[in-house]
């Protein structure tokens, strides 16, 4: 346990160092990077994937994966849009959006823990089902014309910090406390670290897993609110590919895809690295094709480093 905490701290420090090196490189390369306006801009852009990646971290810590989040983003958004069309008040509509996400997550969790489906398959199914329902509900068309109070999430700033960033940071703080200071947090690590041992020691593995997927669905639906506020539109085709961006943020942040080790702090830094990289490449006017290569390379490097460290930890603990 001692080894793993120390290792975690060091791993996040490594990711943080990566972010700083990237920022330093961009600061040297372009005068437009290190300005207050641009940094607020980058933070705002990281919020969308950053929020989904919180739930993804919980799921990956249990040793699972959630491919359905992008579709759940679309479904929750359409649910909010349709509710508003039915003249429901905004607060109720937003609750319906959150509940939609949680239900999708619980369905994933039940399929995986009770139905014994591999997480990849269960969430792949949900990815298609949720997308389909979103298209049916919205009749394939984007829903627009949201109340100004929702738009405020994207337009309001507190001390120059965009609203979406504050939401993201608050959620990361809560998730960090849950994972490091609560019994549930320990159970998440225990289930991901060694499921059999966890079950033998009397942990209800099923409910821990269901809760992790429910959290993933919830964070996808919170992301929806930020996205709808940003685009002033709920699109049934929104969020395609977000699951991969979220997984990338988690992996760059040093959480092991095998489960049991990692942190949301790392994920936050991972999400920031992806946004900073995209922002920097845009500022430099780098071709869109090259950008895809750069992002892929960073993901692979991050995992290579992670694996190297992992082997080292195993040597130390032995």
């Amino acid at each position: 346990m001692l080894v793993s905490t120390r290792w975690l701290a060091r791993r996040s420090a490594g990711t943080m160092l990566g972010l700083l090196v990237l920022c330093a490189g961009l600061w040297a390369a372009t005068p437009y990077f290190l300005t207050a306006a641009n940094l607020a801009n980058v933070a705002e852009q990281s919020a969308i994937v950053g929020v989904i990646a919180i739930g993804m971290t919980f799921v990956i810590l249990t040793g699972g994966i959630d491919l359905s989040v992008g579709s759940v983003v679309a479904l929750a958004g359409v649910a909010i849009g349709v509710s508003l069309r039915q003249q429901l008040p905004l607060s109720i509509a937003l609750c319906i959006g959150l509940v939609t996400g949680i239900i999708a997550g619980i369905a994933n969790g039940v399929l995986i823990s009770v139905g014994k489906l591999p997480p990849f398959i269960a969430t792949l199914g949900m990815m298609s089902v949720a997308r389909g329902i979103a298209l049916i509900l919205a009749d394939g068309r984007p829903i627009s014309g949201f109340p100004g109070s929702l738009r405020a999430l994207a337009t309001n700033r507190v001390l120059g910090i965009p609203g979406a960033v504050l939401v993201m940071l608050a959620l990361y703080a809560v998730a960090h406390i849950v994972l490091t200071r609560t019994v549930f947090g320990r159970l998440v690590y225990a289930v991901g670290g060694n499921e059999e041992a966890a079950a033998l020691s009397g942990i209800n593995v099923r409910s821990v897993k269901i809760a992790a997927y429910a959290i993933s669905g919830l964070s996808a639906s919170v992301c929806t609110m930020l996205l709808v506020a940003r685009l002033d539109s709920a699109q049934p085709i929104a969020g395609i590919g977000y699951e991969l961006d979220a997984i990338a943020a988690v992996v760059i942040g040093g959480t092991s895809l095998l489960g049991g080790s990692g942190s949301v702090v790392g994920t936050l830094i991972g999400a920031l690295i992806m946004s900073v990289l995209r922002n920097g490449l845009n500022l430099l006017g780098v071709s869109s094709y090259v950008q895809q290569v750069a992002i892929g390379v960073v993901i692979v490097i991050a995992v290579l480093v992670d694996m190297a460290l992992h082997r080292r930890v195993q040597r130390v603990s032995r």
Partner: protein
Amino acid sequence: MRDLRSCRRLLLVVAVALAMACNRGGDARGKPTVALVLKTLNNQFFIDMEAGARAAADSLGIELIVQAAEREIDVEKQMQIVENLLQRHVKVLLLVPSGSREIVPAVLKANAATIPVVTVDTRVDAATLRAAGGTVTTFIGSDNEAGGRLAGQFLGERLGGKGTVVVLEGIPGHETGDARLRGFREALARTPGIAIVASQTANWERDQAFNVAQNMLQAHPHVTALFACNDVMALGAIEAIAAAGKTAQITVVGFDAQDEARKAIAAKRMAATIAQNPRAMGRLAVITAARLLKGETVPTEQPVAISLVK
């Protein structure tokens, strides 16, 4: 500790690569910078548009930055690109919106930064823009509705005023596709002998078009014509039609007149397509940017000619 050092080394490599990428971009001193933000660069149409824009930028002494999201439908990524380029203080923003309504907040940000916005090919939804208090300086593009009408008239004549048609739509809510469809339907409405028996989206994509067309042929085996709202989908559809052995039975009309579609027409696998001129659009967009930089006023609509290719 050694691993930490190797991690640092790897990241330094990334930083150096970035710096080199910067040098490659070049600091064209004194040249005004103009940004062209496309929907995607995975489509020949936009690659042609980029080529036209680059040629004009070279001859007019403009530093042109061309960027696009990985996915054509990813409005949020396109918005990020616009936000990032605004930070770079480009002088004019040439924009092909991925979503006619969804891009409005990005236009507002450009307005706030007093950077003129020129939309190309796809319009920003006028009502949403007006309600939000935003402005677009000028629109450059084809009259897609007229193009749709042209396609409808051609089919009416080719089928001799009698037949059944299936339609492959673009992404619902995309102004471009919606306008083509409106024009097409309007033209066919004047030919009562021709009925549209199915109309579904294939999201502008070739592989989806193949599948959707295949399913349509199952449901409507005696269909006599297919209209696809772009050539990419038409090219997917002709493969499905050929696989069903119905190339001779079904008249296929596409939209965009891409090289591959022109070849398919020459090979009698497709009947016609509507030629837009993406190169001219890109060229006119950059010329317009140059005029705006000189402080000239430009018309609010700048149509680019379309024609039927058969």
